């Protein structure tokens, strides 16, 4: 396609600007995490500075952050595993069976995407308190299923639908049991979709703040809660906050880049592909 050089150049400038816009806050966080406190408080802010890994050493030594990251890992991995375990059979049923109330069930799963955590946070707090579950991993693992299960069900249903039904018919003619069909045909062939949904589930759980803030105290503080807890006092430890932020954001960013092609599908529950 022929276009004028000026337009071509404007296009390049625009693309560079998009890249800079998307990356700047991330860059600023990472670079700030390597700045000395004096450099952090410099006015105007410094773009060139002598990097230090002091803040990373500090959060490594301060067991609060490492413990919080372990908590976040435990919660995110367990809730993801549970969501996949419970969600994939349901997805198989929704993809392949006809039964009464199917569309209602389907919509119910999807509406969970819209519900604000604050609606559930209050009653779950009271329930957890009366059951003695406050400040445990279990309560977070369970409550995170409210948004992870729908995402797993949605993405896997979509994936299982794309598996040719003839496969199932052939297997059933050979006498395979219904569960074997699911376990030996749908799960292995649908693995890409299962993996994508698991990654989304991990990202959403890892990033969650409100439930974690309300339902945990000291013992199972997750990483976002720990990072937030540094925001008090007169002179804020900016280097430490930004180092913690970097440690939190880096793994999910990598995961998100892996599923970047499916990002929109994950965020819209598949309404747009």
């Amino acid at each position, binding site marked *: 396609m022929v276009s004028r050089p000026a337009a071509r150049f404007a296009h390049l400038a625009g693309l560079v600007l998009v890249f800079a816009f998307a990356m700047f806050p*991330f860059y600023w966080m990472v670079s700030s995490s390597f700045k000395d406190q004096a450099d952090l408080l410099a006015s105007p802010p410094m773009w060139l500075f002598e990097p230090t890994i002091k803040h990373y050493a500090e959060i490594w030594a301060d067991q609060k952050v490492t413990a919080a990251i372990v908590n976040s890992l435990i919660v995110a991995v367990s809730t993801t595993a549970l969501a996949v375990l419970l969600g994939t059979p349901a997805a198989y049923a929704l993809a392949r069976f006809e039964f009464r109330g199917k569309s209602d069930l*389907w919509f119910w799963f999807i509406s969970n995407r819209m519900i604000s955590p604050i609606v559930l946070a209050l009653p779950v707090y009271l329930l957890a308190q009366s059951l003695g579950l406050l400040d445990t991993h279990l309560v977070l693992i369970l409550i995170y299923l409210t948004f992870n299960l729908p995402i797993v069900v949605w993405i896997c249903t979509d994936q299982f639908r794309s598996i040719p039904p003839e496969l199932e018919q052939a297997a059933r003619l050979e006498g395979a049991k219904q569960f074997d069909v699911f376990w030996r045909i749908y799960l*292995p062939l649908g693995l890409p979709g299962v993996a994508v949904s698991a990654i989304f589930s991990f990202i959403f759980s890892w990033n969650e703040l409100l439930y974690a803030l309300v339902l945990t105290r000291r013992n199972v503080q997750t990483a976002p809660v720990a990072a937030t807890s540094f925001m008090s006092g007169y002179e804020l430890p900016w280097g430490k906050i930004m180092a913690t932020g970097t440690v939190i954001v880096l793994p999910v960013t990598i995961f998100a880049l892996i599923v970047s092609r499916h990002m929109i599908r994950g965020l819209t529950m598949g309404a747009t592909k």
Partner: protein
Amino acid sequence: MSVEGQALAQEAARARPARRRRLEHGRWTPLFFLAPAVVTLLAIGLYPMLFALVTSFRRYNLTRAREGFPFVGFENYGRVLSDQTFWDTLLLTGRFFLTVMPIQVALGLLIALMLHRPGWGFMRSLARVSLVVPLATTYAVVGLLGNLIFNRNFGVANQFLSWFGFAPFDWLGNPSGAFAAIVIMDVWQWTPFCALIFLSGLSMVPVDIEEAARLETKSHWALLRHVQLPYLLPGLTAMLILRSADVLKLFDMIFTMTRGGPGTATELISIYIQRVGFRVFDLGAASAQAILLLLFTILLSRLYIRIFYREIQ
């Protein structure tokens, strides 16, 4: 398994001329596969909601637990509906939505058009991939980062202002500045969402139609208006509904950035309900607010489902 699977697939392909039969299954089979997920979601999703509904009809103040938690009918709802702050926060939430949404749609469309236009292949993919970064960033960290970027003394936002000859500004210290700051962070985080949706819409325009249209007209505007727009509208509708649900949910970023302040300048609805519930400990009123919010959300999601999932029904 996969070799076996392929063999099965080939066999099935040979047998294909037969019409696609519906799979036979036992009456209880779906239940067997669905029950675990449904029971779990009922227990952790629906049960607390019913609990909230019941709580919303009681006087339930944790600071006055000794008085018990008697049923008071619609008293909480009456109090909430006549509470000026509740309406103010809803209005503020609406204002926030009406501020960020046009910016995100306009910028998102612009970015999508740039990413769709041929040329500069590598830079184009780099820009597209970079859009994923804001979407993945932990919302709480976005707020912490906003605190640093918009700091009055050493924030980089004021440095940008000074490059254009403006005086430094106490962003988070005054109401309109704090509102602008949360708008900017939200625009940063969610414009990529709009851009990627628009981009997928643009890539659905059949290539030959787009090529033919380009031969007909040199005007980008005409192309957009007459050829591409129909493919962008479904995405736009999805954006509007999902983003309004997201704004009603918005908590993390604002909580870590301004805690709703200064005063109540950035107190959106979720922040307010959290304050009433967990800082004032009036759980009855907070539950009533949450139920009202839930009703609103259910309306939104019915709308979304009606528009986008018609083919399943």
